[in-house]
């Protein structure tokens, strides 16, 4: 890769720590990547701080409450054929989101191969999986509100903070997934119309992928800390 870069008549960029110093101190663009990618990473960094603030406040109220915390394994159990299967819906939602991350990774790859049809199809598949995730979340919320009586200010199972933490964290994540579905559809349409062929770059597909993988990444942490803890 480094040798390839020198073909354009410029010396190969330095590697390692001297590379870090050269990239930052040179009077030039700091990150030699597509600008959209650098901006998306910085946005995702700020989003990391927002989600960590939510998860940290959840940790704080869970540590500080003297009431018992509702057992998520039981709260989110599904009753199928008279049997109680713990966290089944959440497990399915996790698998759906991971599947969508896989299709997105392939979409980015086919984008750089200039395969318009496959890129668009995989992006739409990603969007469809994301939409079904939001659908299952709506089902989960309805079940919790209607059948279990969970409210942001209280619930019959224990600590009142359970509801507010749950609705805030999963709601904000669900909002990210919903926005991502719209984002994916917009970019998929542009792929289909040949917008990126005329532009000569499919980097936007990779930037969209970064956002989508981040949504999956956040779910990994929510799954571990909220549902399994």
């Amino acid at each position: 890769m480094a040798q390839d870069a020198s073909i354009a008549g410029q010396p190969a960029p330095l590697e390692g720590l001297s590379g870090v110093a050269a990239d930052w101190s040179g009077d030039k663009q700091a990150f030699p990547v597509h600008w959209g990618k650098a901006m998306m990473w910085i946005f995702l960094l700020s989003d990391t701080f927002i989600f960590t603030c939510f998860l940290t406040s959840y940790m704080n109220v869970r540590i500080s409450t003297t009431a018992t915390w509702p057992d998520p394994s039981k709260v989110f159990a599904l009753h199928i054929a008279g049997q109680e299967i713990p966290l089944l819906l959440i497990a399915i939602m996790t698998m759906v989101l991971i599947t969508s991350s896989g299709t997105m990774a392939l979409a980015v790859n086919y984008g750089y191969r200039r395969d318009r049809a496959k890129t668009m199809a995989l992006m739409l598949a990603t969007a469809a999986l994301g939409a079904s995730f939001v659908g299952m979340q709506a089902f989960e919320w309805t079940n919790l509100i209607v059948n279990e009586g969970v409210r942001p200010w209280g619930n019959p199972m224990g600590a009142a903070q359970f509801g507010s933490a749950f609705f805030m964290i999963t709601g904000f994540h669900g909002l990210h997934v919903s926005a991502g579905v719209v984002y994916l559809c917009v970019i998929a349409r542009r792929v289909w119309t040949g917008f990126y062929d005329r532009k000569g770059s499919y980097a936007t597909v990779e930037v969209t992928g970064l956002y989508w993988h981040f949504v999956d990444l956040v779910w990994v942490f929510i799954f571990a800390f909220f549902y399994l803890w």
Partner: protein
Amino acid sequence: MNDVAASETVHEQKAHESADQGHTEGQQHPLGIYLWIWALLFVFSTFSYLVDYFQLHGLLRWSLIILFMLVKAGLIVAIFMHMRWERLALKFAILIPPLALLILIGLMAIEGTHTFITRWAAFVR
């Protein structure tokens, strides 16, 4: 003449290829690696689900949950989000600031414990 023209074409092609695969255009990797990571993510998700299914408790449960979570997060960031192949400057700029969050988490854990003890002493005991 022909030789010069030919060599120019080759040169242009090479420059084009490097633009396609270099840092400015984007990341091009074999499909296999994505499929492998995809499969691994499924495996580790199943593992973390099984931690709950078998109702493991105590230190074993927390350490397994954290371990599977970090492995999955690492795979997503490193491979799916291509962080592994980015320049070190970008890696530092994105991955170091979140470490400040560890201090927030630590402080809030201390604060939460203090609030719990105060509440327990005042209302429960």
